[in-house]
């Protein structure tokens, strides 16, 4: 009973961990999850700050027809994920302002239509490919089985490249996010930064899609960042906290999925959301305690 067989969850944490690590697929899943959590946390933090979660959602959804189309065309799903999400990032960066000048409502109608159409294309590709229903739920709701070592390597290379570019543009991007007008007046190329950021976000969304599925990307892209920004307003602290929360969410989610029959997407979203709700409750608690003190001097 020392971890050499599958024994299920016990109170012996060391034995549990050893059991978790004994299968190569699980090790690969944990590696991939770690890479994805770091990349998603870093880009998600900026995304929440820039209030572009709707765009991030679209980029993630587009990865579904990308992957399904790539499989249909005989390519690897990973090519499809990245090609579709990065391409969509470029399109979103190019489109809104050139159509722009109209009210925001029209823009959100466009995004909604694009999302639905992308999903419809995914459904078409799956239908044309025929009989791969299990693959379909995997694409939509995530699967941690069958991640190969070469896929982990691809995830690592893309994540490292995206994070390197993000590190280069982090300061001006932060400036452009917090105060776009002043940044533009100071000669910061706000528009270009926004476009580069959307491409990076596309990379992150494609990476997350491969773990949580195209529909549950928010769990790693938005929830850790939103949780961290509720806990602290200091940029550096909340940035580090975001990545930490993302890692904990992924590790817990993968572990829970390993020890149960339910899909990994459910656990990752649930842990992420639980963190978010707890952070919100904590902040509300602090606020109610501080209010009498703040009211006293007045």
């Amino acid at each position, binding site marked *: 009973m020392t971890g050499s067989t599958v024994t299920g969850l016990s109170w012996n944490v060391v034995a549990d961990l050893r059991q978790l690590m004994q299968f190569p697929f699980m090790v690969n899943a944990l590696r991939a999850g770690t890479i994805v959590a770091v990349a998603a946390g870093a880009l998600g933090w900026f995304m929440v700050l820039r209030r572009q979660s709707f765009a991030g959602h679209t980029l993630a959804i587009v990865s579904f027809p990308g992957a399904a189309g790539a499989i249909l065309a005989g390519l690897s799903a990973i090519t499809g994920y990245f090609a579709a999400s990065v391409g969509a990032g470029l399109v979103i960066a190019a489109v809104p302002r050139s159509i722009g000048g109209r009210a925001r409502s029209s823009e959100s109608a466009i995004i909604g239509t694009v999302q*639905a159409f992308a999903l419809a294309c995914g459904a078409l590709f799956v*239908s044309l490919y025929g009989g791969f229903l299990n693959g379909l739920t995997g694409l939509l*709701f995530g699967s941690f089985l069958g991640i190969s070592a070469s896929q982990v390597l691809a995830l690592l290379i893309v994540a490292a490249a995206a994070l390197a570019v993000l590190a280069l543009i982090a300061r001006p991007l932060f400036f452009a996010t917090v105060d776009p007008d002043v940044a533009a007046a100071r000669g910061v190329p706000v528009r270009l930064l926004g476009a580069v950021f959307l491409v990076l976000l596309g990379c992150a969304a494609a990476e997350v899609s491969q773990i949580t599925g195209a529909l549950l990307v928010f769990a790693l892209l*938005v929830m850790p960042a939103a949780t961290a920004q509720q806990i602290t307003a200091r940029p550096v602290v909340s940035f580090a906290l975001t990545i930490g929360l993302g890692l904990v969410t992924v590790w817990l989610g993968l572990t829970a999925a390993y020890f149960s*029959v339910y899909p990994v997407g459910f656990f990752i979203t*649930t842990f992420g959301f639980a963190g978010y709700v707890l952070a919100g409750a904590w902040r509300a608690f602090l606020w109610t305690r501080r209010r009498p003190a703040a009211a006293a001097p007045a």
Partner: protein
Amino acid sequence: MSSLAGLLGQPFLRYAFIAGAVIAAASGLTGYFVVLRSQVFTGDALSHVAFTGALAALAAGANLLIGLYGACIVVALAMAALGYRGQADDTVIGSVFAWILGLGALFLSIYTTSTSNGTSGVNVLFGTIFGLSATQAVTDSVVAACVCAALILIARPLLFATIDESVASARRVPVRAIGTVFLGLVGVTAAAATQAVGALLLLGLLAAPAGAAQRLTARPFRGLWLSAAIAIFSVWTGLVISYAAPKIPPSFGILAVATGVYLIAIAFTANTNGRRA
């Protein structure tokens, strides 16, 4: 002509055409206001809820329709109650609906492992308009027709409340109650449309015809009717395409036509704007 007769000779196609038209009309009408009120994100959230509600009912062994309508209406009303002070933060909505969808994945897994219903999740996600039974078609048509009627009844005050909320409330228009009723109607529409095009694609049926109509005309009531007409046109054309080419799922046909109309509308108006400038 004989092929058209053959098309309508099949009962399942008749149901699809009739129910599809009424659902499309309801989606077009509510969608117009959804877009006008910038509540597309709400429609998106409802589509996720529709999926989870339907699968929760299936996993619990209940009728799919109960879960579908129940979940959509309850959540729409809850959003109306919570999100009134300003637009709800999109991070909050996004986090909530990602979690709801995660729950849906859980119910899907419970349902498909407890029984051998491998395709039910796909049906809820991407629609089964050709699989509607007679009773389902009648239920959906009646519900969608009621939505249309209710929306036309409140259209004028709703429009007033949408365009200038403060003036409308000063004029004693019950802005808040109308907003709540409207979101309830959106919930019902979402549930009905889930049957036709599926939970994931109903956003397109809400947003695309309305977006196209708003580009083509600035006059609100003309836009409202145009939006409904475009939606019905999309559904019918999509159904014919899918009937002619059985490999193409009907939901894709419907969405492709709706998106195409929207693109044409954008191209058309961009052209006229350019000439005017």
